[in-house]
C-alpha cells in the first residue's frame, strides 16, 4: 500500500510515455469524402509524419478548386514530429525522477500535444482553404472556406467527414494519464519534499 503510493505515478507516467511513442506509428486524423460517384468514399489518414490513403485522387479533385496538393502542408511539422514526440515522451519519463513541482512543467508539453496537433491542423486547413489558385477551373464557383477539423463539411457534391483517429486518441489518453500521474506524483512526493526541504525552509525562518 505504501509502495503503491510511489509506484502508481511512475506506472502512469511511463505508460503515458509508451502510448505517446506508440502513437507515432498510428494515424492521428482522418477525413472521408463522400460523393455519388465514389460509392466507397475517399479517405485520407494523417499520421504525424505522412499522409496515407487516396491522397492522389483527392489532390486530383482539389485541383479543380485550386487547392494545393495536401503533401505541401505542414512539411516542417511532419519532418520534426517523430523526434518531437520522442522528446515529449522522454520529458514525461524524466518527470518520474524529478520530485519537485518542476515535474509538472516537464510533463506539460506532452499534456498539451493533442490540442497542439489539432490547432496546427486547423491553421493549415484554414490556410489551404483561403489560398485557392484563382486560375483553377472552378475558382469562381468556390468561396474560400475552412474545412472542419472535426465534423462534417460540404464542397460541391462532396460531403467531408473529419474525425480524430486512433493515434490522437492514444495521445489524448496519454495526456489524461499524465495529469493523473502528476497528481499522484505530487501527492506521494510533496510530503517527502516538504519534509526534506520544507523543514529547512522553516528552519531558515
Amino acid at each position, binding site marked *: 500500500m505504501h509502495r503503491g503510493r510511489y509506484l502508481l505515478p511512475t506506472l502512469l507516467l511511463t505508460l503515458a510515455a509508451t502510448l505517446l511513442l506508440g502513437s507515432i506509428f498510428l494515424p492521428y486524423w482522418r477525413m472521408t469524402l463522400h460523393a455519388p460517384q465514389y460509392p466507397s468514399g475517399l479517405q485520407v489518414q494523417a499520421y504525424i509524419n505522412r499522409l496515407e490513403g487516396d491522397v492522389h*485522387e483527392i489532390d486530383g479533385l482539389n485541383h479543380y478548386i485550386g487547392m494545393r496538393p495536401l503533401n505541401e502542408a505542414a512539411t516542417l511539422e511532419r519532418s520534426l514530429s517523430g523526434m518531437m514526440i520522442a522528446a515529449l515522451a522522454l520529458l514525461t519519463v524524466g518527470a518520474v525522477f524529478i520530485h519537485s513541482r518542476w515535474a509538472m512543467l516537464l510533463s506539460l508539453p506532452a499534456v498539451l500535444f493533442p490540442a497542439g496537433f489539432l490547432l496546427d491542423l486547423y491553421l493549415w486547413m484554414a490556410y489551404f482553404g483561403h489560398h485557392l489558385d484563382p486560375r483553377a477551373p472552378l475558382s469562381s464557383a468556390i468561396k474560400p472556406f475552412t474545412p472542419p477539423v472535426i465534423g462534417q463539411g460540404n464542397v460541391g457534391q462532396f460531403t467531408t467527414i473529419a474525425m480524430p483517429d486512433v493515434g490522437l486518441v492514444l495521445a489524448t489518453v496519454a495526456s*489524461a494519464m499524465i495529469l493523473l500521474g502528476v497528481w499522484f506524483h505530487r501527492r506521494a512526493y510533496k510530503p517527502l519534499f516538504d519534509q526534506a526541504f520544507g523543514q529547512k525552509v522553516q528552519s531558515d525562518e
Partner: protein
Amino acid sequence: MDGGLLEKEQIMQARILSVGLIVLMFSMVGCGRSETSPTQAQNSGGSDAINQLAADRGLTPDDVRAALMTYQPSGRLDDYIMFSSGGHSGQVFVIGMPSMRLLRSIAVFTPESWQGWGYGVGDEVLAGGDVNGKANRWGDTHHPALSETGGDYDGQWLFINDKANARIAVIDLRDFETKQIVKNPVAINDHGGAMVTPNTEYVIEGGQYATPLGWSYAPLEQYNQSYRGMVTLWKFDRKAGRIDPQRSFALELPPYWQDIFDAGKLASEGWIFGNSFNTELATGGIEKGNAPFEAGASQRDADYLHIINLKKAEQAYKDGKFDRVNGFAVISLKTCIDEGILFFAPEPKSPHGVDVAPKGEFIVVSGKLDPHVTIYSIDRIKQAIADQNWELEAYGVPVLDLDAVVEARVEVGLGPLHTQFDPHGYAYTSLFLDTQVARWTLGGAYSELHPEPAWTVAGKVRVHYNVGHIATAEGDTVSPDGKYLVSMNKWSVDRFFHPGPLFPQNFQLIDITEGGDKMQLLYDMPIGVGEPHYAQIIEAAKLKPWAIYPEVGWDPHTQQVRADAAKAGEERIERDGKTVHVYMTAVRSHFNPEHVEVNEGDHVVWSITNVERAEDATHGLAIPAYNINLSLEAGEAVTFEFDADQPGTFAFYCSEFCSALHLEMAGYLLVKPAEMAMSQ
C-alpha cells in the same frame, strides 16, 4: 440522398469520438459501437399488387419465377461470368449470369475503336496474326478456352481460335486484353481450337478444311496424295503469358476434315480426342457435275474419331522425330502411325461434339445426322489398342473395332451437336434439328447421382431456334457446377424485334438446378454483334481482374512499367532531328502538354500516360486525320508513332467522358507545312 445513412453514422462516430476525447480526460471508457436498428423493408403493396402487375402484363407464374431468377437489382453482381466467342466479329464477349448482361466485348482479331485496338494500341499483337505479311484484320472466333489447373478453370488466361485464318489468341484475365496472336504456320484455317490440356500445358488447335501443309498450291486432283489435315499442340508458357512456337508442334493427319477436339482429363489425361468429317475425301465441284461437298462428304455411315496419345506425341517431338513446315515442327503421319500416337474409331457421321465426361472415362460424340450420342470408354480404347483390335484404313491408321470401344448409345433426338455436363450425373446435348436440348443420364460411376436408369433421356427443353453449342456452368471441367445452361441459338426468328433482315442470335438461359425433366427457360439475350459459337462459364469469384493498372506508367502488353512512360511533372516535347518525341500525361481534365507543334515530314513518337489512380477513370486520346484513338485506363502508358504527313491544324481530345470538364480536355496538334518550316 445516397449514402446518407453511412454519413450520419460517421458524423455520429465523429461526435462520439470528440466528446470521448474530453471524457477521456477524466475516465477511461470503452469505445461503444453505435447501434443501428435494422431497416424495415417498405411494404410496396404486397402480393396483390404484384399479382395485378403480372396479370396486367400477361405473365404466367413461370414467367414471374423466371424474372425472379434472373433479375439483379442495381449494384448486385452476377455469380457467373460467361466468355463467349464473338463469331465473325472477331472478338470475345464477357457476359454476366444469370442477368445475361453484356459486360465487355474484348477486342481480339478485329480492330475495335473503343479500346483503341488497332488505332494506336494492339498493332503489334494484331500483326502477329498477319498471313505471310498480309494484314488480315478480322477473325471468326469459335471456341474460347479458359486456362485450367488440375482440369478446373483457374481464371487466369483465355484462349480463342480464329477459324478463318487458323490463329490462336491469348487473353490475360488480369486486364481482359489480348496479349498475343499466333498464326498457325501449317494450316490456313482451323476449327478444333482452342482447347487446353488439364494444366494448360498445351493449347490444342485442330484444322478444318484440308490443304497441302503450309497451304502451298496443289490441284484438287491431287487431293488424296497432297492434301493433309493437322492438329497443333501450342506450348503455353504460363510465366511469360505467351504461347511459345519454338516449343510447339503439329501432327500431320489424313485429309479428313478435322472438326473439334477435346483434351482428356483424369482417367483420360494424356490423350486428346478429335472429330472428323469428309472421310469420303470428297473434293466437291458442283459446277463440274460432281457431287457438292454437302452430299459428297456425307456418303459413308461413319467418320473417324481421332484418338491421340499426347504423351507419345510429346516424346516423338522431344526425340526430334519431326519435319519442319514453314519452320514449324510437324510429326509426319507415318511417324504418328509408327510411334502409336494416332488411332481412329468409327463414329456417327458428320459429328460435331467430342466431349469428355467430368471424370475423364467417357468420350461423348454426337453426329449431326444420327439421332444418337455415342459414348466411348477410355478403358475400352486402351484395351482395344493393347489387343491390336483394329483394321488399317487407306492411310494406314489403325481403326479400332467399334463394338470394342463403345460403352453406350443414347437416342437423344435429331441433330445432336454438342454435349455439356452437370454435377448430378446428367449430360446435356443440343439438338439442332429438333431445336431442343436433351438431358440424359450417364452410367458407370455417375449412376448413383441421379434417380433415372443409366444412359436414358431424362427430359428435353425447347429452344428458339436451331441451337449450336451449349454451355453449362463450368460444364466441361472435372467439377461442373450445373445450375445454368446457355443455349446458343443460330436463329431467333420471332423472339425479338428484328432490326432489318439481319437478325440477332439468341442466347437462352435455362435453369437446370432441378433434376428429371424439369428445365425452365429463363431469359432470352439477343446478340447483335456477331455469331457466337461456343462459350465457357466460370464462377465469378475465380476471376481476379485489376480495377486499375498496378502502377502508373504500366504497359499492358508487357505487364510492367514502360521505360519511356511519360511521368507527371516531366511532360515535355523533345526534338531529335526529324523525330519529335512527345511525353504527355492525361488526368482529369487536361492533357499536358496541350500544344504539340511539329513540322510536316517529322516522325512523331508520342508517349502518353494516364496518371489516374481512381477506378473507372479512363481517358481517351483521339487524333483526327491520323486514325488514332486510344483507350487509356488508369495507370496505362502507351507509345504510338506516326509520320506527320498532313499539314494543318488538328484538335485532339479525350474521347472517354471523364469529368465535368471533359469537353475542355483537348489540345492542338499543329503540323506546320514543310515550306513554312523551311523558311524559318
